[in-house]
């Protein structure tokens, strides 16, 4: 179905220091230029899997075994530069968390960290990324206002924009629309459809319906294990596993 995996996950297990096993023997190929949606009930390991892909879990005490290979590079190798990995694999969280800066500074922050000082480059990145996340027209006249003055939906699109400004290869989204109204959700979803042409998108959608709307590859996760995966259409019209069927028809979860 997909023959151009961007990320190959081999027998990945992740445990937290309190003893919970968040992921058990996960194997999955994530295709390039497509939307891969991880869905399932809470506690299934979706967030853990996303945060493992750019090693954000390093901030916590976790034990990890297995491999995650992005473009032939195992991200757990000792000599991997974690900082540059996180620039290649950007993440957007469930809660829109703008940094306590202006709208413009939120976007230029990541580039400035890497030493970019040229005003023209930064301005280009601000406009380009805000256009990609469908926020430009709403904020172009007040880029120097505090990012906290934006509505929740605008903040979330700002959070997507600031990740895009880093020109990542992979975009991770952890329930990016969970706090948004339907109109904002629709805007985010439609911008994802455009973004997938240039990026590898991995998302934990906020709902089953959203999974059905946007998933090219849908992955059903339950208690840290992959139960079943397939193209969005196949999985929702003819699930192979009983658990998947029960979940998507609303009998549990």
């Amino acid at each position: 179905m997909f023959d151009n995996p961007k990320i190959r996950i081999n027998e990945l297990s992740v445990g937290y220091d309190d003893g919970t096993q968040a992921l058990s023997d996960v194997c999955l190929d994530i295709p390039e230029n497509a939307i891969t949606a991880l869905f399932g009930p809470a506690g299934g390991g979706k967030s853990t899997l996303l945060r493992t892909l750019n090693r954000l879990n390093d901030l916590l005490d976790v034990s990890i075994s297995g491999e995650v290979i992005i473009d032939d590079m195992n991200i757990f190798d000792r000599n991997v530069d974690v900082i540059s990995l996180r620039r290649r694999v950007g993440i957007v969280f469930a809660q829109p968390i703008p940094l306590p800066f202006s709208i413009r500074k939120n976007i230029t922050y990541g580039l400035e960290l890497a030493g970019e000082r040229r005003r023209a480059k930064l301005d280009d990145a601000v406009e380009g990324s805000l256009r990609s996340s469908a926020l430009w027209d709403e904020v172009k006249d007040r880029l120097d206002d505090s990012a906290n003055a934006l509505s929740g939906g605008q903040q979330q699109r700002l959070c997507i924009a600031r990740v895009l400004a880093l020109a990542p290869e992979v975009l991770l989204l952890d329930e990016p629309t969970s706090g948004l109204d339907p109109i904002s959700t629709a805007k985010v979803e439609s911008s994802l459809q455009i973004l997938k042409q240039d990026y590898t998108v991995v998302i934990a959608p906020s709902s089953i319906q959203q999974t059905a709307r946007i998933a090219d590859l849908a992955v059903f996760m339950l208690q840290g294990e992959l139960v079943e995966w397939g193209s969005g259409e196949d999985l929702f019209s003819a699930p192979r596993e009983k658990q998947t069927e029960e979940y998507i028809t609303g009998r549990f979860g």
Partner: protein
Amino acid sequence: MIRLSRHHTERIVFAVIGLAAVATAVPIIVIVGSIFFSGAEAVSWQFLLEMPRDGMRSGGIWPAIIGTIYLVVGTGLISIPLGVSSAIYLSEYANDSYWTRMIRLAIVNLAGIPSVVYGLFGLGLFVLFLDLGSSIVAACLTLSIMTIPVIISTAEEALRAVPQSFRVVSVGMGATRWQTIRRVVLPQALPGILTGVILGLNRAAGETAPILFTGAAFFLPKLPNSIFDQTMALPYHLFVISTQVPEMPITIQYGTATVLLAFVLTMNILAASVRSWQRRKREW
């Protein structure tokens, strides 16, 4: 037993706690008011800017004022970098281990040590063992040991109040831990840190015991020339002219108390306005 209706209970409770609030405010108002009232006539530009004369019985208190400023600035130069760095280490880098618990315990206990003990410790370590003599630098080091715990605990609290999510977001965008601290965490915690710094230095400005053996002079005919000289200082000068000099005019005593009190109150007001600036500026 008499049962009161809850309306009566309400009134009595409010009366009692209201009275308690007034009772704590009254002594402060009386002390500050009476000192300022009696000291106001002594305070003039000459009093502030002249050297003392006639065995301190006339003239001004300029060397004590400048000495206190030297001590506060010197203490700040030592204790702010050390205190803030320690707070950053404890809040941002240190894991919760046996050693960090020991460090925290030490800080809490340091804050509770009587100030005269700091004075004797400073005498032993800085004045005698390190052979700095009774000097400004020895006094500043002693005052720093007293100030640092205050700065560490308020600064650590201010750093911890910055939401963890900011750090995760920043690191997620490719920042190193130091970039995250420098660009996101510290600017947000700065007002809280400043409050702690001012309160700590304020204590250093008003204390007598720590500088008694380490750097304060009874009387000096001229201003100190270097950090290895002794200096006069407001709190010790006040102690001296109140208890050690016979036939001391009462107006000079009140005048000196007024200046010291005004110094300390100004710093307190500064700390309070920094705190309110912080609340207005906060974006979370």
